[in-house]
């Protein structure tokens, strides 16, 4: 089907709108994920959100509530455990517990494979107009949270000792990032699904980091790339019928590879005259 003709249908416009909000949030928050190197948490929280969504399905409440609640609790749990043990261990343990309960919810709710699949891989065509508004609100809150902590997030990462001396708390910044990750997750769940929101969080931001020099430049570039990737993926998915997440992950990897290659070529060109 011609992807542009599809836009005449309301479901496609809803999908496009929701995906755009999600893309902005993912590109923005992903920047901090990349700078702070918290890829594992960015991968774990969406998966935990999946468990929350299956719990919401079991209880019959709004899945957005389930995902937000579950991933926020998990974010706080990871933050609290990470103070006592190594961070990757804490993340892995919370992730396993979250997914275990998710498996239980799915089997107790007698949910079929299709339900699990749509949670894991997204069901973008099922987004309603109220869903679009919910997605927009959750994305906005997530962005507002990281934007409020922008200076602290960068300060505590790039100059940890100086930040500690100045009394800027790394813990608060950490929790702010984790919670906004959880929020972004719940916005992304219906669009790209739990497994592949990670691609959208990390791919564009990584690509932007290789091309930009200043934080705001990197954020803008990351948001732009993420929007581009999302729109392209949606159109490809409309026309081919394959899952959106597949295209998102392929295009993200492609963007990363291209930016890495170009920045390396650029570095060689600038290094050559100096030599």
């Amino acid at each position, binding site marked *: 089907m011609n992807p542009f003709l599809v836009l005449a249908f309301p479901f496609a416009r809803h999908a496009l709108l929701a995906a755009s909000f999600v893309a902005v949030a993912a590109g923005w928050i992903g920047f901090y994920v990349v700078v702070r190197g918290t890829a594992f948490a960015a991968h774990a929280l969406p998966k935990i959100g999946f468990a929350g969504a299956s719990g919401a399905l079991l209880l019959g409440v709004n899945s957005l509530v389930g995902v937000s609640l579950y991933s926020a609790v998990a974010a706080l749990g990871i933050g609290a455990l990470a103070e006592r043990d190594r961070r990757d261990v804490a993340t892995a343990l919370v992730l396993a517990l979250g997914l275990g309960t998710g498996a239980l919810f799915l089997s107790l709710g007698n949910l079929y494979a299709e339900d699990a699949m749509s949670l894991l891989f997204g069901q973008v065509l099922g987004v309603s107009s109220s869903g679009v508004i919910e997605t927009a609100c959750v994305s906005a809150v997530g962005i507002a949270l990281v934007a409020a902590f922008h200076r602290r997030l960068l300060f505590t990462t790039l100059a940890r000792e100086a930040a500690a001396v100045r009394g800027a708390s790394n813990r608060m910044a950490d929790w702010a990032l984790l919670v906004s990750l959880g929020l972004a997750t719940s916005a992304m769940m219906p669009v790209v699904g739990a497994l592949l929101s990670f691609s959208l969080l990390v791919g564009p931001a*990584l690509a932007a980091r290789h091309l930009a020099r200043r934080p705001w430049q990197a954020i803008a570039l990351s948001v732009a790339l993420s929007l581009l990737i999302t729109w392209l993926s949606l159109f490809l998915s409309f026309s081919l019928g394959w899952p959106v997440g597949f295209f998102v992950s392929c295009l993200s990897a492609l963007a990363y590879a291209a930016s890495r290659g170009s920045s390396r070529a650029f570095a060689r060109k600038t290094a050559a005259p100096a030599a």
Partner: protein
Amino acid sequence: MTLGWLGEALASAPVEHALVAGTEIAFLSGLVGAFVILRGQSFAGHVLTDVGTTGGAGAYLVGMNGWLGFLSFGVVASVGMELTGGRTRGERDLATGVVLSLALGFGALFLYLDAQLAHANASMAVLFGSLFTLDPALVPWISLAAAACLVAMLLIWRPLALASVNPDLARVRGVPVRAISVAFMVVLAVAVETDALVAGSLLATALIVGPAATAARFTANPLRAGLTGGLLGALIVAASVLLSYDSYTWLPQHTSWPVSFFVAALAFLAYAAAAGADRATFRRRAEVELR
């Protein structure tokens, strides 16, 4: 009465197969997990489960045995990750992340195609495990793989321990650090991908990290941590299999609760208990030192 259902459970062939294969592989996972904790490779271990998803889904797609799909993808990915490793941990995690996201993307596509071709249950089996429907013909192969990994671990134990704690010193002493790391990653891949049969690819992490992290709260000695973690893991899986068998009667609607839920919950409980106990002893020790 308890012995009654236990005896009934033990007499059933699927439960027996699940117990044999599950405890063997859980022991190996705990042993390997001690080094995963020591080397800070929880993320890599987790990534292997997701790569395994892609392999398992792809295997169902072409009608191959699921375990072989898990294994082949896992081993290739583990060697690839080890050889392309970055300099710092954050950097390594991000590079791993890109590979992971690509693998997940293809996994999504394969599972989608599986569902299209009416293997809807295949995707659930890949993601959440299906220990009770384990092919009996696979059990000896799983035992063989576990035994081979155990022997490999014992062979590389001392150099691996040295290379994990102090790679520079190991290099000076003439230990082939890179080869040892690659060998370890292959063993890890086999353990992780077989765990995926027990607990599903989403939950294999619980068996690698949970028991080993619990053991690591008590001892810094890798041998002791490995053995404790292995025994704890085997215990957790055995208990999970039996609980899952028994849970059929727990709720009026008669659904047996998934094995993977019990594995994750018990692993987390064990860790939480250990962390609590550890903190209590730590406080006591600190008080003694202050005096």
